[in-house]
């Protein structure tokens, strides 16, 4: 990847992380850990890969994005705001009763959200339907969905995985945000879905494994998926839950809790410093 683009993406991703912390802190609830772990992937998709236009969010030829792990809504909102779908200031209204930003993504409230999600396992099915719609209509748009690694414990994910390959949905790319943690603990201990790549291969998918925080690897993976024909592609993105905020990293306790004022200051200070270094 071009060094300038990589740097720009890192800056956007850092700002996206600040938006996540801002939103969850003001809401006093939400899911920072799994939002931070997929922030780089979402930043890449919206700023460097997907064919989208914030001025025309309903364009029928746009690429689609479904956040199957809907609890990472703060990450999606933060990236959508930075991309220009709505003002960044809105992030502070997250989860408030008069906000356009629901606790989980909703097409009814938020410009740029392509599918309402939140109940795990359902987003990937909708993504399959969108990909099928593209094929049926002879359209070239592509469909992207991000799943949690805990989410793939849901049986519906495997119904959809079987379906996507059986119908030859090579215009669909799924990402598994493989941060290794779910609410009750390590996913390997709660109810292990490992090995993940072998499972998707057995279901007929093209499987790519990457470091979820390396833009070079992210870029290579999505470009490879775009070129792969005949099967849907899945990117197993090995990530760190809470990535970018030192005390949240790899800590299951930050799955679904908001920082207090002191923690908020520390998190923002760390991200400000990272941003300053990137912009230097």
């Amino acid at each position, binding site marked *: 990847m071009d060094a300038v683009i990589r740097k720009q993406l890192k800056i956007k991703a850092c700002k996206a992380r600040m938006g996540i912390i801002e939103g969850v802190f003001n809401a006093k609830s939400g899911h920072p850990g799994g939002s931070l772990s997929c922030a780089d992937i979402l930043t890449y998709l919206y700023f460097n890969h997907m064919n989208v236009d914030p001025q025309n969010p309903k364009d029928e030829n746009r690429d689609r994005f479904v956040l199957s792990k809907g609890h990472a809504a703060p990450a999606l909102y933060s990236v959508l705001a930075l991309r220009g779908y709505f003002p960044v200031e809105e992030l502070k209204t997250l989860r408030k009763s008069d906000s356009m930003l629901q606790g989980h993504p909703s097409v009814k409230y938020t410009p740029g959200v392509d599918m309402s999600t939140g109940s795990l396992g359902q987003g990937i099915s909708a993504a399959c*339907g969108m990909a099928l*719609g593209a094929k*049926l209509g002879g359209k070239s748009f592509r469909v992207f969905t991000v799943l949690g690694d805990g989410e793939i414990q849901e049986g519906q994910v495997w119904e959809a995985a079987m379906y996507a390959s059986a119908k030859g949905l090579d215009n669909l790319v799924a990402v598994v945000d493989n941060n290794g943690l779910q609410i009750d603990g390590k996913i390997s201990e709660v109810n292990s879905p490992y090995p993940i790549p072998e499972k998707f291969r057995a279901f007929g998918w093209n499987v790519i494994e990457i470091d979820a925080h390396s833009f070079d690897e992210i870029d290579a993976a999505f470009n490879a998926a775009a070129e792969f024909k005949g099967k849907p592609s899945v990117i197993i993105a090995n990530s760190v839950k809470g990535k970018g905020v030192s005390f949240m990293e790899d800590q299951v306790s930050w799955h679904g809790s908001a920082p207090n004022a002191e923690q908020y200051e520390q998190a923002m200070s760390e991200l400000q410093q990272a941003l300053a270094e990137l912009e230097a």
Partner: protein
Amino acid sequence: MADVIKTATRDAYGKALVELGGINDKVVVLDADLAAATKTGMFKKAFPERFFDSGIAEGNMMGVAAGLATTGYTVFASTFAMFAAGRAYEQVRNSIAYPNLNVKIGATHAGISVGEDGASHQCCEDIALMRAIPNMVIINPADDVEARAAVLAAAEYVGPVYMRFGRLAVPRIFDEDYKFEWGKAVVLSEGADVTICATGLMVKEAIEAKELLAAEGISAEIINVHTIKPLDKETILASAAKTGAIVTAEEHSIIGGLGSAVAEAVCESGKGVPVVRLGVNDEFGRSGPAVELLHIYGLDAQNIVAKAKQAISLK
């Protein structure tokens, strides 16, 4: 007198889908390995490029229907009522109704008249489940003519619709030129002493019950409530004001279906009249021939007559 035509509403559904497919190229049909039984197989044969089988995976099918609908298609998703409203309840709620997507759920094999397959497949709770979901419209046609008309009307409406069809062949009630009015209950015949609100295959029983009641000097008004949600309160309350007593009749649990909807409307009107519900009591079904089961579970004209007398006695 010519023989009465008997057709299952699922057959009318299958034929109507083919008719729709010919006039609307945005109609897409999904099924979950039951195309022969739900009759979507007719559409599959006519328009194979617009038919997709999800296999035995109803939850995923509803999600796929939702996604397809976002790309501009009018999607009909079919399986048995038990799996459409039961197994895939949460997918219908969260992936279809919450985003208010243009998906029509064609649920066949509803109620006790599934027959020999028994209780595991006899869904008598689907109306209750679907009623509780915001944005959902529920249509329960009484015969093949109404079923066809309802399918065509559902395709014109933008938003989620749950359509309830039966396995059992039922007598035709309506003329071929019957006009289906969206959300409007139909007063089939006027009466003075009691109102019978019926839906689905119980409409035919209500018409028979009227004859039986007339023989005893009781005048019954018959209302066909083909659309259970939104409920046509105006027509029902006007009839209640006139007759002063209501019986509801449905091939569904007495909990949460037409009877509950009518009772809620009557109670809240402040002009209370007795409402007596006929339906499947709070119990599971069993195996047996469909017609026999309908009698065993009390879903017939004789029981409507008994409930009508009960309602009148409560005035």
